[in-house]
């Protein structure tokens, strides 16, 4: 019993996690015909917000209007629901393993929490911009794209990790 309890606090064996994730991806493709994603929901909520605040601007601007249509609300999107699910699932997992705690910041001892937050925001911002260029993020473009053998997905995977290694040296203080 104690063994089981201890194990529930551990992370999954990474390969086991990978097989599960692969099977989930396969199931997703089997059911919906496309892969998993994450940034799509953020895009939808931004489009909705901009449309609410400045409807004429949103309609006339090329990128927003791409995702606006009369019969279809941008938030009633497959990815929005999927993203809500991600939060719920992660919270469940964290709850079971006892990892859910009040707000805390994870950082290398060499930097202050403030520095970490600044870089987290900057990183998020870059990732946001990059994901639009790449037409998907790590899960949407790289993982799902590679699994469905799209050239773009394969390229995205190589480039994300490649440029990560390229820049790793300059940001080593953040992590080690």
């Amino acid at each position: 019993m104690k063994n089981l309890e201890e194990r529930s606090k551990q992370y999954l064996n990474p390969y086991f996690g990978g097989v599960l994730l692969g099977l989930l991806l396969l199931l997703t493709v089997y059911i919906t015909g496309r892969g998993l994603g994450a940034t799509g929901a953020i895009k939808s909520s931004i489009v909705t917000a901009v449309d609410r605040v400045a409807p004429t601007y949103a309609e006339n601007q090329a990128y927003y209007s791409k995702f606006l249509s009369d019969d279809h609300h941008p938030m009633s999107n497959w990815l929005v629901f999927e993203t809500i699910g991600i939060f719920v699932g992660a919270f469940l997992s964290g709850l079971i393993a006892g990892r859910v705690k009040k707000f805390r910041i994870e950082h290398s001892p060499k930097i202050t929490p403030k520095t970490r937050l600044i870089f987290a925001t900057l990183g998020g911002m870059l990732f946001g911009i990059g994901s639009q260029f790449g037409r998907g993020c790590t899960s949407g473009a790289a993982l799902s794209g590679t699994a469905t053998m799209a050239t773009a997905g394969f390229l995205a995977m190589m480039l994300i990790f490649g440029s990560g290694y390229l820049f790793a040296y300059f940001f080593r203080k953040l992590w080690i």
Partner: protein
Amino acid sequence: MIHAKNPRRLTLSLIVFVLIIIVGLITMNKPEFSYKNNSAQVLKSILNKEGELIPEKAIFYAEENNPSFVFVDIRNPYEYIKGHIPNAINIPLTELLSKETMKTFDKYVRDKTTIVIYANTQTEANGSWMLLKQLGYSDIKVLIGGFEYYSKELKENEKVPETPEYFVETPKYDFAKIAKEASSN
């Protein structure tokens, strides 16, 4: 926090995955029919007219009961009884893809017997002929002119005109001229 070291669940999940695939491969139902010839090959054989049998030859083969030709009447049994090419067998169109038919056809293929499909007209038999061609039967012909022309030919027993009537795709009229006449009337 560390990762679980024990790969038991990993092994289990991977084995389940492999089992799904193995079960899938075993239970996979093979399609009964599949195309052996693509449309380019079919079109080629249509254009070089190798699959057409003219009625004069058909009469000749049918009367001497040539064993290397078998006539397949795809009309319904009623029409077949009313009249058919001598020694023709009757496979109604609806039965064309049935197991028995396939067995019969395969026997003819083994015996190197040419199958000649016919119905009342060439158009009526055309679909079946093309379908069988696409399914990979190479030694299969269609009777041009159909049974209508064949029976008429037998009755009248006349000399064949310059451009035989059974080449239905030759224009019978000068359409442009008729159209002009129609407007002047």
